[in-house]
């Protein structure tokens, strides 16, 4: 009797575990499906999409859609492909990421190791700026960029992304440095080390992980931004996301789905690569942005 029931328990357990794996597998398919469809249909001739099955493998493999998306597709009025916009996005993202990370690191250092009266209010102001809906700054920002002579330019977008990135980078470094032993800083101070020397010699050498988090988070956000690019860029400075949207939603001519998919993968590739190479830090950044502990 007792043997029978324990065998029963084992078999229900096995059924349950199979079920668990099955559900996980189904969800994995759900998450992978769009990526699979983008990949498969980006290497098909157009006729196989319009006259065939989207989920089927290509009968004729071709890289033409990739070539077209990269260098000859019609974006706006020019048949330039996505290449110039890809370059725009890089030129825009790299300085904005570096600048906001440097400022965030210094802010985090001051807010944890050199606290002054009202440091919490300053942090609160910076923190809330992470969460504002950017619609609230669009109008004055457009005006200000005009006054500064940066309207419709990549430097203008760098400024925008830098300014609205400070809040997040400060949050990261503040939380990271809060766990850093303050005694070390005080000891160095007694030895006569100054503000920057302590930062450079003591905090920075152990800041590798949080710099990675900040770089990855900022890069992902800035690369993926659409609202600021659509609002403040002109035809010559549009980032990749805006160009991709122009390519896909342009109403003239035949819809070249395969080219759209190839372009979408190109727009996704940099952030996807970052995620594959440094996923651990990516997840940490996400969590730090949500659970401020």
């Amino acid at each position, binding site marked *: 009797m007792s043997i029978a029931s324990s065998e029963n328990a084992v078999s229900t357990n096995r059924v349950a575990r199979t079920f668990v*794996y099955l*559900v*996980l597998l189904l*969800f994995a398919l*759900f*998450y992978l499906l*769009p*990526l699979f*469809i*983008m990949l498969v*249909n980006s290497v098909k001739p157009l006729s196989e999409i*319009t006259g065939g099955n*989207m*989920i089927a493998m290509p009968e004729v493999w071709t890289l033409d859609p990739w070539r077209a998306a990269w260098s000859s597709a019609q974006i706006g009025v020019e048949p330039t492909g996505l290449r110039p916009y890809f370059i725009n996005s890089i030129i825009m993202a790299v300085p904005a990421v570096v600048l906001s990370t440097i400022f965030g690191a*210094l*802010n985090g250092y*001051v*807010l944890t190791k050199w606290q002054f009266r009202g440091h919490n209010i300053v942090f609160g*102001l*910076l*923190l*809330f*700026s992470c*969460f*504002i*809906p950017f*619609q*609230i*700054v*669009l*109008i*004055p920002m457009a*005006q200000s960029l005009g006054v500064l002579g940066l309207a419709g330019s990549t430097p203008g977008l760098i400024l925008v992304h830098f*300014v*609205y990135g400070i809040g997040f980078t400060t949050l990261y470094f503040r939380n990271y440095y809060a766990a850093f032993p303050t005694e070390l800083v005080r000891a160095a101070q007694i030895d006569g080390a100054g*503000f920057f020397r302590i930062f450079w010699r003591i905090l920075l050498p152990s800041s590798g992980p949080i710099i990675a988090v900040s770089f990855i988070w900022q890069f*992902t956000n800035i690369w*993926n931004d*659409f*609202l600021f690019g659509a609002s403040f860029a002109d035809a010559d400075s549009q980032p990749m996301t805006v160009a*991709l*949207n122009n390519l896909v*939603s342009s109403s003239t001519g035949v819809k070249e789905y395969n080219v*759209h*998919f190839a372009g*979408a993968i190109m*727009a996704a590739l940099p*952030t*996807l690569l*970052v*995620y*594959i190479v440094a*996923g651990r830090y*990516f*997840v940490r950044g996400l*969590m730090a942005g*949500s*659970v*401020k*502990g």
Partner: protein
Amino acid sequence: MAEAATDVDMRTRLQEWLPRLVLSPSLALVLFFVYGFILFTIYLSFTDSRILPSFGMVGWENYSKLFRLRHWEIAVTNLAIFATLYIVICSLIGLLLAILLDQKIRGEGFIRPIFLYPMALSFIVTGTAWKWMLDPGIGLENTMHLWGWESFAFDWIKNRDFAIYTVVLAAVWQSSGFTMAMFLAGLRGIDNEILKAAQMDGASTWQLYRRIIIPQLRPAFLSAFVILSHLAIKSYDLVIALTGGGPGRATELPATFMYSYTFSRNQMGIGASSAVIMLMTIAAIMVPYLYAELKERK
């Protein structure tokens, strides 16, 4: 001698002020570009601005116009539907996947990144992929027909009454993995001793989850709610890429409303007032949350 003393004095004073000096550019930038701009937009929402900012005060007129607009009503209703479903479904899927992944799964390190990678993509990419996948002509519906299910119909993306649900679908695809990660972190943080004790007392797995584990995930639920709701209110790119706000106005959200009234319809005053409403909604959620989080830490 006296000079040397004042020199030293100057230097220590500089050292004292240096931290604040280093912080001040960031503070100045944020005060100007965030809080100054917020005040300016609030100010504009009380003016008769059209194509360009203008400074004739009109009192609450823009707000009363805004709330009489059918277009705004659609946007707000859509946001209510979208935000509710988005938050609830993401939380449910996130919790389910987190619990399943927490059963000592073989290959967890392989599966988890698959759930999470959509978060790395731009909403424009997500929108493009789903736009064509849901397209009745070439997407899912066509595939089902080719597989012999002739009567299968799935034209939600072209259907005024159902298009908003395709936005929910794509948004859930993008963010539910992230919710899973938050719950998983919560689960891993639960003290194992309590669970062992409950198990010794004869609690079933179901009871364990319902009575002990899920109640302990309250902070994770709260964080998920706050993050997802603020993402929902800010949603703009996904709608633009997926449906462009259409068919008709069927998937307009406050973010797309604000953009089109401000920049294409030249009703800047009304656009500004809609942005203020969006900010107030987010502030009502974020400020108490951030305040509590900051206080707790002391």
